[in-house]
Each structure stands twice: as structure tokens, then as C-alpha cells.
């Protein structure tokens, strides 16, 4: 019976994916479709790295290397199959195309898994930061080797890869990765992985073959990363070695840590969040909005651990009020200019809009003041970041607007630091997103 339900669910998922695959390009513009695909690939990367870093506790910082192996192996397969066997002007499509791409994904997974095994074996001897540096080294060596292999384009990059990746394939792999990770973590093997993370010596003493489980995590995690690389290669139609350097690995680690080590839903959500955030930050008007929205959100979410001190109440209230005013005056014009981008707002609300926005932001800033201690602690904690950015926005708006592109990564990194300072365990910690999480989330406001 259970097997039947699973089968029906699987069929439903595949049908839903196929329908969405057909309709999404018609509903949404190509740019948004591209972001959706990139988000899917990042989900695969983040969840698979979470298996290694979050659940098994092995510190790997070379995930992009595995991605490169999978991407290049599969791209070489499809490209040379097309050029040497089919020899058409276009790569074979239709059902043949689907079959070829399925085989390419398998090749990507296998080749990356072999690399994962090679890296996982040294983890028999190495621990913590030493393992991290070896994974980093493997990643860099892979990139250097690819740089020199002329068959796949060398340092010029591998171009002219056939186009196979679409919404269906990406999200099929996303579903497969998430389900596999979840089932693995909840099984006996998963408990062994978590035992290795919590205390390797104790796990060993309990009869768990720690080596085997560490290598297992590496192999599965890197296989998924390889598939992600294949998806990316057949979407962008080109692969470049420099795209798989240390920075890419860092991007994935950021998603994992931000979402919470050992939280699958956390990884999924932050992968989407980071992808969308980095795209939104390309538009100058959104840059400041996002920044302050997130500051406010973290202010509400971070919970106090220390009660207010009576003697310091007056200066704290003063700081609060001052900072709130600064925020309102810096933020209102920016929100206004962002909203002016929306035609409907411009037509109906433009004249009185500014005043409304002033009031709205003041209300949003006062809302967390209901819990004054939260707000104060938050402002003290992030005083320097808040001050610098508010000053920039208040006094150098023109300079800011002229250099908005330069601010993209600055805001991104500032956000990263602020989020980490306020939620050191990541947005979700080890918890999964469930009904209980929602209740907990809104508790500070309800009280």
C-alpha cells in the first residue's frame, strides 16, 4: 500500500514538473526563468554540501571542484557524442536528447563520486581544518588540471555545449537530492553520520565504522555536486574553469551556514534567498531597501538573552529613537523611488505616496520597539554597520547612486556579517522548517 502511494506521489511530481516546465517560460520572462534554474542548481549544491558539512561534520571547502568534474565530464560526453556520432548542425533533441542527458547526468554523478572518494580517503587521517585545506587543495588542483586539458577547451573555457537543461531536469534532481538526503539522514546510516559529527571517538567506540561513513558522505555529496555542475554546463552552454574556483565553494558554504548546519529546509531556503538576493542587488533602487528590510527582519527575529539594565535605560532609549529617526529619513526616499518603478503606484499614489511611506516605515521601525530590549541590543550589536550605511545613504545618496554596482557585493558581505552576528547558528540552526518553527518565530511579536 505504502509503495503504491509512493509511486503515485512520484508520478504526480513528475507530471507537475513537466507541466511547469512547459508553462513557466510562457508565464514568466526569461530572466526570472533563469533565476529559477540557478536557484535550483544552488539548492542541489547547498543540500549536498550540508550532508558533508552539516550532518557528518566534515569541513569541506572544495565543493566547486566536484561540480567542475561533473560538469566537464558530462559536457565532454554530450559534446563529443554529438560531434563524433550524430554530426548534425544541432544536438539531438526529443526523446534521444532526454536519454543522452540522463546518461550525461549519470556520468557526472559517477565521475564526481570517484573524485569524492579520492578526497574522502585522506579524511581517514585528517581532521578539522587540515581536512578543509586538503579539500581546498583538491578543488584548486582540479581547476588547474582542467585549465590545461585542451580537449575540453583549457583556460579558454568549454563552449558550444548542447542545450539540455530545463526546469524539469533541474527540479527533478532537486527533488531527488532533497528526498535522498532526508531519507538518508533519518535512516540508521544517517544516525551514524550524525554520531560522527557529534563525537567521532564516541561513535567509533560504539562500533560505527567512522571512516566508511565519512567517505560515504563525501561520495554522495560530491556526486550531487557533479550533477549540479552538469546541469549548469548544459544550461549556460559553456563552462569556464575560473567559475569553479574557491569563490564558488565559498558561495555554497555561505548558503549552508546561513541556513543552518544540519537543516535541509534551511539549506533549500537560503539557496533560493542568496540567489534571488544577489540578483536583486543588481538593481540600484533595491539595494538599500533590501538592506534595511533585512536589518529590520533580523532585529525582530533576534531574541534577547540579557535583560535591560535600569541605569542605562535613558541612553538606550535615546539611541533607539535616534537610530529609528535616522532609518526613517534615510529609508523613505529610497522606498519611494523603488515604488515609482511600479507603474500602478506611479499613476495612483505618487503625490501622497511619500508621506504614507514615511509613516509606514516609522511604524515598521517602532514595531520592534515594543520589545525595546531587542531593538537596543540589536542596534548596539550592529552599531557600526548601521551607522556607516545610514550615513552613506543620508549624506552621500548621489555618490551611492553613482556607485550602486560597486555596492552590490559590499551590501552582500555586510549582510552576511550581520546575519552571522545575530544568528550564529544560522537561520534555522539544526531545526527543520515546520509548524512549530512558525509558532516560535512569531512568539516575540505575540507577547
Amino acid at each position, binding site marked *: 500500500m505504502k509503495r503504491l502511494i509512493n509511486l503515485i506521489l512520484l508520478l504526480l511530481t513528475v507530471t507537475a514538473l513537466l507541466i511547469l516546465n512547459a508553462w513557466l517560460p510562457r508565464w514568466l520572462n526569461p530572466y526570472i526563468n533563469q533565476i529559477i534554474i540557478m536557484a535550483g542548481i544552488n539548492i542541489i549544491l547547498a543540500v549536498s554540501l550540508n550532508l558533508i*558539512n552539516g550532518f557528518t561534520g566534515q*569541513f569541506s571547502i572544495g565543493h566547486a571542484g566536484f561540480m567542475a568534474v561533473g560538469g566537464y565530464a558530462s559536457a565532454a560526453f554530450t559534446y563529443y557524442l554529438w560531434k563524433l556520432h550524430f554530426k548534425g548542425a544541432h544536438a539531438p533533441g526529443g526523446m534521444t536528447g532526454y536519454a543522452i542527458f540522463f546518461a550525461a547526468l549519470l556520468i557526472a554523478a559517477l565521475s564526481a563520486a570517484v573524485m569524492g572518494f579520492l578526497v574522502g580517503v*585522506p579524511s581517514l*587521517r*585528517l*581532521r578539522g*581544518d*587540515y581536512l*578543509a*585545506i*586538503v579539500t*581546498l*587543495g*583538491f578543488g*584548486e*588542483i582540479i581547476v*588547474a*588540471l582542467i*585549465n*590545461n*586539458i*585542451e*580537449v575540453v577547451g583549457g*583556460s579558454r573555457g568549454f563552449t558550444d555545449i548542447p542545450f539540455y537543461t530545463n526546469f524539469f531536469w533541474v527540479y527533478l534532481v532537486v527533488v531527488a537530492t532533497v528526498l535522498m538526503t532526508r531519507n538518508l539522514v533519518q535512516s540508521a546510516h544517517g544516525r551514524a553520520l550524525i554520531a560522527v559529527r557529534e563525537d567521532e*571517538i*564516541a561513535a567509533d*567506540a560504539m562500533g560505527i565504522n567512522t571512516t566508511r561513513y565519512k567517505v560515504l558522505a563525501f561520495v554522495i555529496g560530491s556526486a550531487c555536486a557533479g550533477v549540479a555542475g552538469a546541469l549548469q554546463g548544459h544550461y549556460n552552454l559553456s563552462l569556464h574553469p575560473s567559475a569553479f574556483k*574557491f569563490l564558488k565553494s*565559498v558561495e555554497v*558554504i*555561505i548558503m549552508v*551556514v*546561513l541556513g543552518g*548546519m544540519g537543516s535541509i529546509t534551511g539549506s533549500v531556503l537560503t539557496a533560493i534567498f542568496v540567489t534571488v538576493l544577489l540578483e536583486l542587488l543588481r538593481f540600484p533602487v533595491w539595494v538599500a531597501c533590501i538592506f534595511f528590510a533585512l536589518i529590520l527582519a533580523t532585529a525582530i527575529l533576534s531574541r534577547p538573552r540579557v535583560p535591560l539594565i535600569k541605569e542605562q535605560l535613558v541612553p538606550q532609549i535615546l539611541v533607539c529613537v535616534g537610530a529609528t529617526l535616522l532609518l526613517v529619513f534615510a529609508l523613505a526616499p529610497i522606498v519611494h523611488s523603488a515604488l515609482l518603478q511600479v507603474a500602478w503606484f506611479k499613476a495612483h499614489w505618487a503625490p501622497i505616496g511619500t508621506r504614507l511611506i514615511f509613516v509606514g516605515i516609522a511604524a515598521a521601525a517602532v514595531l520592534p520597539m515594543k520589545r525595546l530590549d531587542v531593538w537596543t541590543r540589536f542596534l548596539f*550589536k550592529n552599531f*557600526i554597520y548601521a551607522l556607516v550605511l545610514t550615513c552613506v545613504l543620508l549624506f552621500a545618496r548621489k555618490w551611492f547612486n553613482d*556607485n550602486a554596482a*560597486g*555596492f*552590490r*557585493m*559590499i551590501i*552582500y*558581505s*555586510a549582510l*552576511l*556579517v550581520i546575519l*552571522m*552576528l545575530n544568528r*550564529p*547558528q*544560522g537561520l534555522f540552526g539544526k531545526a527543520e522548517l515546520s509548524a512549530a518553527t512558525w509558532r516560535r518565530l512569531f512568539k516575540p511579536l505575540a507577547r
Partner: protein
Amino acid sequence: MAGSKCQPANLLTGLVFLADWLQQLTIGIVLGSVYALIALGYTMVYGVLRLINFAHGDVYMLGAFFGYFAANALRTAEHPSLWRAAAVFLIAMGLCALVGMTIERFAYRPLRQAPRLTALITAIGVSFLLEYGGQLVFGADPKSFPDVIETKPVVEWEYKGSFLIITNTQVVIVVVAFALMLLLRFIVLHTKIGKAMRAVAQDREAAALMGVNTDAVISFTFALGSALAAAGGILISLYQPSIDPLMGVLPGLKAFVAAVLGGIGNIPGAVLGGLLMGLAETFVIANTLWLPPILMRLGMAKESASGVDISNYADAIAFLILIVVLLVRPSGLLGSVQREKV
């Protein structure tokens, strides 16, 4: 950069290219001593906090930029003198020490009790902040570092058609770097704050119980490491006078590798690791006979007029050495194996 082309030389022909060999040795030691200076910052911070301070490479970049502004303000290019050069060094080192302490105060201190990976991500965030902030403030295009000392050769030697040239800049780099390392050794081994640093590195809680102000000691460690990185930044700018906001990324990574190679947390280890990295980068690439033919046969290297070009492998070989060393000695060359107690 030297060592970009492979010379067909093995042990036998190596003697013929003796001058060439010595030239590679010089360049290796020059680069290595700068890597060692940066690696010291990594290793000291790791020692007291168990934190890989990824922003360290960018503090080195800031050091070079502070040196650039100081040298322009003091007009060292027009009036080169020892005092001005010293002033450039001191200003940059002082400013970087302040930057290091600020970073520690606002980005790392709130995370003392947090999981280690959180602090690591924060360090990466700070590193991005410095890199992209640097691009915004200083401009993304490379700047030419003004002359602080007049470059002239001190050794010129020809031996069977190959040359050995050592410039005074190279000598200054090595001398200043090693003088700073000796100073550091003195501070760590023979002063009160050095004793406190060692105590914090050994056991932070126990040190705090014994009356050591751990926050002050950690702050001092950051200041010391950042000042050394600043010195490294200026020294390398004397040698390769083109500076840009992303110049710290690769040397930072290599210095980190050097610190791990020597055994992270171990100060002599960082110096050894740094020198090895510098030598590996110039030497292994310049003087191997066995590697190019194999790579050629695999179709993974191109032949050019002056031999087989394997400069692309520079970083890969450095990492390969690292991996091999770590597989043989899992806690670095000089690192001690710590037994875990249950």
C-alpha cells in the same frame, strides 16, 4: 614573475645552470619570506582563537595601500631616504594594526561562543567587505607603488651563459622580513604580553582564571599579525610595484596554506611553511625535468620556444606538495599531534 618558463635542466645540467639555479633560490626566498610574514598572522590568530582569519590577506592588501598613500604623502619617490622608508613602514603597520583590532572587536568578539564555522563565514564576509570596499574607495584598477628605495643590483654574476642578479630591494625584503620575525620571536618568548599570548593559546579559560585579560591579548595578537601583514604588503610592493584591491586574495590563500604546511598555530612552522611555499613556487616549476614530458604526452601542456610551459601548474603544485605533506604528517611539519581525550 620568474619561474614562468621551464628550463630543461636536471641535476647534471643543473650544475651548468648554477647561476640560474641560485637566481631561482633568491626569488624563492624573497617570495617565501613575504609569505612567511603573512602566514605568521594566520597562525597566531589560529593559535589564540582557533579561527581561520580569511580577512588576513585583505589586511595585507590594505597594508600595501596604506604604504602607497604614506609614500606618496612623504614623496619618497623624489627624496628617497632611509628615514622616509622607515616612516612609510611604521605608518602602514600602525594603521593596519588598528584595522586588525577593529575587525576583531566588531566582527569576531561577538562570536566567541558561537560555532567555529560561523566565525569563519563572518571572516569571509569581512574579507569580501574589505575587497569590494577597497574597489569602491581605491578604485579597481591597479596602482603603481612609488619607489621607496632606489633599486640597483648588488650582485651580478655570469656563469656559463646564465645570470645571477640580486638587487638591493631583494636584500631589503629578506632582511626586513627576518628582522621582523626575530622581533616577533622576542615579543612572544621574552615579554609579559608574549607570555600571556602563549597562555591564551594553550588554554583560554585557564588563562582567564589566572588573571590574563584574554580580550586584550587577542586584540594584541590581531594587531601584531596585521602589522606583519602590512609589512609584507609593502615589501612585496617594493618588488612587484603594482597594487590593487584584490591583490591579497592569492597570497592570502598561499600564506594560509603555508601556515597549515608548517602546522597551524606554530610560529616557527609558519616561517618554514612560508619559505617552502615560496621555494616550491619558483623551484619545482623552474627545475623539473620529469613533469613536462609527462604532461606533454597527456596533452596537458603546451610547448613554447623556451621549453614546456607549465606556469599554469604553479598553484596546483603548491597544493599537491601540501596534500602530500599532510598525508604523511597530518598536523603539519612542525605541528604536534594532539591526542584527543574522551
